[in-house]
Structures are given as structure tokens and as C-alpha cells.
């Protein structure tokens, strides 16, 4: 999926960048605070790098199940009024959102 970059080399979490990925607006103070706190957490997490995991498969499933599927059958939906009930902003039968600036940023 992505190349294995050792977290030990070249700096840990860039809170500002990750916050953007996660759509969390942070004030500069928050960013600094979280940077500090998360660097600390990652220090503790670094312990994992010492563990020998060669030949170990990642846990795909806690209990072994496969092929849990459902039949292609209709099941009653929510009323439209229920579906739209929580909408912070709606126009008629639609959910309304502010302008979309970029193509899937």
C-alpha cells in the first residue's frame, strides 16, 4: 500500500498536515499543543519498532469468519422525512452544502 518509512528517521507527525487530511481546523496554539502531546504518544508507541514481527501476518479478523453476505432483497427504507430530519441545511428534498471549491481535494 505505501512504502515502509521508518518513523524513527526524519521527524514524526506533522500535526498541521494531518489536521488538513482529517478536516480539523486547529488554531496555532492547538496545533502546538497537539504536536507536543502526540510526539509524546508516538515516543511510547515507538516501542513497537523493537518487536520482531517477521513472518507474522497482520490480524485480518479477530474471529475467523468469511463470506458473510446478504441476499439481494429489498428492506424498507427510512421515510424521507426521517432521512432529512437531522439535516443541518436542506432545500426541499435535498441536503444543502456550501459551494464545493475543488475537485475532491
Amino acid at each position, binding site marked *: 500500500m505505501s*512504502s515502509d518509512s521508518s518513523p524513527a528517521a526524519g521527524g514524526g507527525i506533522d*500535526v498541521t498536515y494531518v489536521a488538513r487530511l*482529517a*478536516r480539523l481546523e486547529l488554531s496555532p496554539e492547538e496545533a502546538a499543543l497537539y504536536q507536543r502531546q502526540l510526539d509524546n504518544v508516538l515516543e*511510547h508507541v515507538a516501542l513497537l*519498532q523493537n518487536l520482531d514481527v517477521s513472518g507474522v501476518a497482520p*490480524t485480518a479478523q*479477530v*474471529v475467523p469468519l468469511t463470506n458473510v453476505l446478504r441476499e439481494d432483497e429489498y428492506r424498507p427504507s427510512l421515510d424521507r422525512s426521517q432521512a432529512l430530519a437531522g439535516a443541518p441545511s436542506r432545500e426541499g428534498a435535498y441536503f444543502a452544502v456550501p459551494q464545493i*471549491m475543488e475537485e475532491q481535494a
Partner: protein
Amino acid sequence: MIERSATEIAAAVNGRQASAVEVLDAQLAQVERVEPSIGAFLSATADLARRQALLVDEAVAAGRRLPLAGVPLAVKDNMCLSGTVTTAGSRILEHWVAPYTATAVQRLLDAGCVPVGKANLDEFAMGSSCENSALGVTRNPWDLRRVPGGSSGGSVAAVAAREAALATASDTGGSIREPAAFCGVVGMKPTYGRVSRYGLIAFASSLDQIGPIARTVEDAAAMYDVMAGHDPMDATSLPRPVEPTATALRGDLRGVRVGLVREFDTKGLGQEIDALYRRAYEKLAALGAEVVEVALPHAEYGLATYYLIAPAEASSNLARFDGVRYGLRVEGANVQEMYAKTRAAGFGPEVKRRILIGTYALSSGYYDAYYVRAQKARTLMAADFEQAFAQCDLIACPAASSAAFEFGAKGDDPVAMYLMDFYTIPMSLAGVPALSVPCGFVRDGESELPMGLQLVAPLYQEARLFAAAHAYEQATRFTLDRAPASLEGVR
């Protein structure tokens, strides 16, 4: 009435010695008396409770027997209950009304439970003290200056304070067991997949499980029996039939091998706590158990593993809270800005921290080193349990490293709080069932604070787990005949 166990209440209602409405009235009176100091609930569900109580009475009058007839129930507020405000303890869902009911909760309603209110929790179940709730403060009934534990703080406080006979709770890294220990009640986390997660607001999908909170093991077992079982709405729910546990309880531990985990030695926890657990293990032996030493060699990696996997899954599960379809919205000049402002305003600091670290652990360049590596460590930990259970039938260890601490005691350092999960995380990672049962008290100042013994069973062995816990509980009765200090004088 409010002192009765769920089993007793159900028997009385089914036997027509009391009506569900009477039980509810008594319960609501207690809530009114006690809530101002305890703060277990974020919202009351009085109308729903009354309707449900009437239905139960009708059913009983028509000749039906319901397993939990009339039993007052607190529902942790990360579980959907149709028509009720369901907040997950967060501002981002502060006013959201759930249009459907979680399967586990529905099964309890169908069994006759009467929902008294939605119980407080750490926001999105992230926390070990309930201090991370954005919407309310819950106090430990044994000492109001102390936390009830978390994340299921409201659930355990409600049951301990006799505001409900049963409560639903959820456990991801210890969120049932640790608060149960802090509040002197029984709390159990089933095998992963035993209880449907449909309708449980997700924190970490591969770890979350719903479990019972009760004042007795028998009650917890009865509640588990009702909730457990396959649900077609949850693809991770086990198709295995559920062996009944409430009817398989035992009075002793003859023939049971109990494993004490080398890595969980209690010497480092202080003299009083160390002695308390020694006595607990001796009691198990006195009940007939053969006590052996086992090892969980990778236990020390539990926290690191958990605090990568859980936040990673959470960062994805919480992405849906974006101000588009429900919940809080803070306007922005464009939609991406709206997302960022909404989530900034709606999520508390601990939730943000976990989203950040979880996003990081999944991000390009770090996925293999963090998330994948943690999942490999998890495999090793699950194997540890398998090997340990080759030598014993149950594991006994602490449910928490201390008794309940005071509000603010863990300061600003998230890691200090994370360490509370040390004893409970490995079981979550391996998916094995575990519970906490009261095992004594320690003194801190003028307070006597409960502590919990954690019992762990192999996958699918919930019956064995409850049976042993019941034997221990009946032989010790630490909280069965004793109510929390704060309730004295409030009768």
C-alpha cells in the same frame, strides 16, 4: 425496590407481585434524589419508559413471561434508541435524535427492560475516566470527588447509585471493565462478535463490544444472555449459538485452573493493592481452583498496539461527522472549510488527538510502520492468550492499576490516562471475553474505594467466565450488601 437485583425485579413483575409501572416510579424517584450529585444521565427517557412499562404490564397480564420484565435500564449514550437524543457525549451530536434502535438495546426492550435514561460517557467512548464527556460530569457514587471511570462512566454510576438495575455499556480497550471496578459493580466484555454492534456509534470497529453492567454477576449473565447472538445487520457478529450463562452459574471453582499472569504481577501497585489482589487469588484457590502461573509475553506492547489500531479505525469511523447530513454544522465559505470548522467545534481535545494520530498511522508512508505493524503485534498477543489458555481455564488479574482517582488527577498528559488501560487492552486486542467483579476496597483518605478483579476466559467461553465470577462473588459479597457512601442518608 431499588435495591433489588434485576433477577428479583423480573421475578416480581412476572409473578405480578409488582407492576413495571410501580418499579419505574420507584426508580424515577431515586433518580430524582440522586442525580444532582451523581450526574449519570445526559438525558431522561421518561415518556418512552412509561410506554414501555405499560406494555410490559400488558404482556405479563396476557400471560407472557419476559426474561427482564420491568427491569429499569440505563442505556449508554453511544447506543441508538429510536426517538431519543443520542449524543456519544459529544457536541457534534448534542441534539441528534436517533431514528432507529441498536439491536442489542432492542433485544433488551423486547425482553421487558424499561429504559430510564441515556448514560454519560467519555466523548465517542474515548477515555478512561468519563472526564472527556463534552456534555456532563458524572461522579463516582463511592466518592463524589472522584471519577467513575470510563468510558462507560454514566452506566456504572447509574447502576452503583441504584438509578437503574442494569446498564448497557461498551468496551473497546477496557471501557466496561475499568469503570465497573471503579464503581464496585459487575461489568463484562463478551467475545468479539458475540453482541451485535449495529446501532453502537463506532469508535474502533475491530475492538468495540457491547456488554452488561449490573450489581450482581447473575444479573449481568441474564442481561448478556438476552443481548448476545447473531445479528444479520452486523457482518462481524458470530453465527455461533449462544450457550446460556445465567443458568450455568456455579458455587465453587473445583476443577478450574486459574492462571496468574507473570507480566501482571501486582507488586508494583503499592502494598495495599498488592495485598488485596493476593487475597483475591487466595480466595479463588480456597474455592477449589488450581492456581498456576501463565505468561502473556507481549503484554507490554499492548498499549502501543492499541493506541495505533483504535485511533486509526476511529479516524475513519468519525469522518462521517461532517455537518452535511446530521449533527452540528458550523458554516464555512466553502464545504471543505465547513467540514474543518464543524469538526473543530464539535470534537473535544481527546477525540481530536485520536483522530490526528489515527490519520497519521494510516497515512501514506506510515501505514506499514504503524498500522500494519500494530496488527501484527496484535496477532502475537492473540497467540499469547491461546498459549496461556492451554495451561489454564481462566486468567485472573487486576481490572485496573488503582482505585478511582480524583478529577483532574491525570493532568494534561494523555499518556498518563492511557496507562489506565494496561490490564484491559490485551483482552480487547485478542477478542477474548473478560469481566470485572468487585474484589475489595482500598483506603484513600477518608474514602473507601472499590477495586475490581478481572477474570478472562478463552474465546466463546462466557458461561465459564460468569460461573467462576459468580462463585467468587457469592463467597465474598463485597458490594452485595453495601451501598456507596454518597447514597447514605439519601434514602
